């Protein structure tokens, strides 16, 4: 490991209504992989974006190569050799690989036209240095696989001759083999003396690539430790901020009768391949797995959004068909979707209207509706769920993430379904609101509701579930009872999909 090439001191970044970063220090050495870890909303990506020049910090300074730098936008950071490989790809689909790599830095011929030949040659060399010579530099990016697109993204970053590279959750969309080859690349870049900031919350990956870890929580830096200086458990405790047993409160309650049973579910896109699952009344069932494992897709089948190719769903023992969300709600199934802004809420509409969105027919069985009654219902849930707002007539887009999620919950509570699916229910919300959502889930379970909880946050799944299914690449690869929970084993199965296949079969 070399000398320190980048330091950030006392960084404070404000967003409307919250402190995303509070007096955070960070440093990076040449040739090291420095992992930034924390729960969603802890400020990992925000810190990375401040370093990249995408955000301007209100306070603090960034020093690069011994001099203080103040970037106006990412382009100035790029010119210094600070580049990012983004989580969402920043490629243009219908121009060539080479054109994407040299976007806005195109080589030109004497006539002032784009010099495709030269760009393609250099792109080919860059990809060759990544052992990806099989990628056709002339082909449209649209025609590449996700992993190939990521390699193009890395090649693009390399073309800037970087000194510092930021990887933001790079493995989120990759398969195991692709993750392997990505890690090989990172090791190689490291050897060349590039400093790497690696944003992630997948603890299984850390020993494979990391040198140091900085833990953030609620915008505050907790600690920087060497990779071998702390156990996974200590890491989780630092991330969450308290003993897990205090965050996740579960009351023991009876599970009586099967509420929902799904047999051999398949979809048309090979995302869900033979999924079996059962949920009992009064039970919280977790589905763990990586992004892309087919968890959300399974939920979509159960809720009638995603067409089912084959399989059978039973509710209370009766075979049912669920082809539309309307049918699903009539059968008493509710879905708290992964993307609350797009799917969970009408952002421009008021809290009150969103609260009654599903239950309108239930509240008003006759033709006409009454705004007064809607407001009453909304106020009731506002108090119950402690939604922080001055008025229920406020549009949802003005609420914080946690309060928006509470409105989504209010929407379902007012409808009162028997089966409730939570897809990443605590994504992007602060710890306080998280705990309220957990205790609400617990309360619902004790009332006899059947709950399915999908989450990428292992501590959360382990803390809340009575039983956990593990999904990997469309298959259920394991089922674990609460008494057998072990985060390392579940983590390994999520990553590798191995070890549990026999379990799923039986």
């Amino acid at each position, binding site marked *: 490991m070399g000398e320190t090439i980048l330091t950030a001191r006392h960084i404070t970044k404000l967003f409307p209504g919250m402190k995303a970063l509070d007096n955070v220090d960070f440093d990076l050495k040449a040739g090291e992989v420095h992992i930034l870890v924390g729960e969603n909303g802890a400020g990992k990506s925000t810190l990375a974006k401040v370093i990249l020049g995408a955000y301007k910090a209100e306070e603090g300074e960034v020093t690069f190569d011994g001099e203080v730098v103040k970037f106006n*936008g990412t382009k100035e950071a790029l010119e210094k050799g600070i580049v990012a490989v983004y989580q969402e790809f920043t490629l243009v689909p219908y121009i060539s690989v080479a054109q994407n790599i040299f*976007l*806005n830095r195109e080589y030109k011929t004497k006539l002032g036209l784009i010099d495709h030949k030269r760009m393609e040659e250099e792109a080919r060399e860059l990809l060759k240095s990544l052992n990806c010579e099989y990628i056709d530099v002339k082909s449209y990016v649209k025609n590449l696989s996700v992993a190939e697109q990521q390699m193009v993204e890395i090649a693009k970053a390399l073309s800037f001759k970087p000194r510092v590279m930021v990887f933001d959750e790079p493995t989120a969309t990759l398969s195991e083999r692709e993750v392997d080859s990505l890690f090989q690349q990172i090791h190689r870049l490291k050897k060349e003396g590039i400093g790497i900031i690696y944003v992630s919350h997948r603890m299984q990956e850390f020993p494979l690539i990391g040198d140091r870890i900085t833990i953030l929580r609620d915008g505050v830096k907790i600690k920087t430790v060497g990779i071998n200086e702390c156990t996974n458990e200590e890491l989780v405790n630092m991330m969450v901020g308290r003993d897990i047993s205090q965050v996740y409160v579960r009351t023991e309650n009876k599970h009586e009768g099967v509420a929902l049973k799904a047999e051999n579910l398949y979809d048309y896109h090979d995302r869900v391949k033979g999924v079996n699952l059962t949920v009992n009344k009064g039970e919280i069932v977790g589905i763990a797995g990586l992004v892309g494992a087919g968890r959300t897709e399974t939920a979509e089948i159960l809720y009638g959004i995603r067409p089912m190719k084959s399989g059978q769903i039973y509710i209370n023992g009766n075979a049912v068909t669920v082809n539309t969300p309307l049918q699903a709600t009539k059968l008493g199934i509710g879905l708290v979707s992964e993307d609350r802004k797009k799917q969970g809420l009408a952002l421009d509409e008021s809290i009150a209207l969103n609260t009654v969105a599903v239950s309108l027919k239930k509240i008003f069985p006759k033709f006409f509706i009454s705004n007064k009654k809607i407001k009453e219902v909304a106020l009731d849930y506002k108090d119950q769920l402690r939604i922080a707002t001055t008025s229920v007539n406020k549009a949802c887009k003005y609420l914080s993430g946690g309060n928006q999620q509470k409105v989504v919950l209010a929407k379902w509570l007012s409808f009162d379904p028997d089966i409730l699916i939570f897809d990443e229910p605590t994504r992007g919300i602060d710890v306080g609101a998280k705990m309220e959502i957990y205790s609400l889930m617990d309360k619902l379970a004790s009332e006899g509701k059947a709950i399915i909880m999908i989450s990428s946050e292992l501590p959360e799944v382990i803390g809340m579930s009575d039983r956990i299914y593990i999904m990997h690449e469309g298959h259920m690869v394991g089922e674990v009872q609460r008494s057998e929970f072990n985060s390392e084993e579940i983590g390994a199965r999520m990553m590798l999909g191995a070890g549990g296949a026999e379990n799923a079969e039986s």
Partner: protein
Amino acid sequence: MQKASMKQRIKNIPPVAYMLVVIIIVFSFMDPHYLSFSNFRNVLIQATPLMIVAFGQTCIVLTQGTDLSLGAQVSFVTVFTVFLAQHGIILEVAMLIAVCTTTLIGAVNGIIVAKGNIPPFIATYGMQNIVNSISLLLTAGSSIYFDSFTYRIVTETTILFVPLMVWVAVLVFVLVWIVLRKTKFGTNIHGLGGNREALTLAGISPVKCLIKTFAFAGFIAGIAGVITLCRVESGQPTVATGWEFQAVAATLLGGTSMREGKGGVTGTIFGVLLIQIIKNGLNVVGVQSTYQNAIIGSIVLAAIIIDAVVRIRSEK
């Protein structure tokens, strides 16, 4: 290697090209005189102004937009040029001024769309009405005239059996093709439709880029206007009414997509030819004009539905 790329090329031919062949065959069975050189020459000449407008529209569609003021701009050029000429400006200079004006109109469209973040459909619809009104005001509602020999030079000089105006369309095609394929500006047009975030992160301003694209389309509409003027030899405030929609239809028929910045200007040629050949064929076989629009509309719909079905199938 060579074979694979050949296969790829065949795959890249938009379905509209096959449709074109089918329709030509159908018409030639219905009327023995249909398959003649002079008839095809006619089709080409008739198609030329719309063809040019459609090249501009293609650029706009690539950015996920539509410019509904392009037809109005074409009419405006015919009117404004004649108006200027009547007031003592040399006709050729007047043409140039008119083209500059439409470029400016395009830029204004772009500024409204990009800076105001307003859907192009609405913004350019407003502009369409404004431009149409100006044309009507300048002409008091009827056609205006200015005699000149220049018109005939454009429409009647032939090079290799093809009139000069068709060559102008060819030139515009080459220009747009080069812009899209071989310039930064063109790359950015694909980026506007495909991934604006990527442009921003690369330090490109999507706003400036959109303004440029609309201005470019305005410039091309201006050229189409000059060609139209030479054909009708007068300033007619409603000569190009509806062309903007035909241009959108031709663009979509040609395989350019409203999403992801997919497509290009080559397919648009086939799209325009298809529309024009159907019109011409229906005339030759003697179908009443009342039915013609319905038939064209049905064929446009059919082509787009077939395309959508093929796409959905391939996604499944």
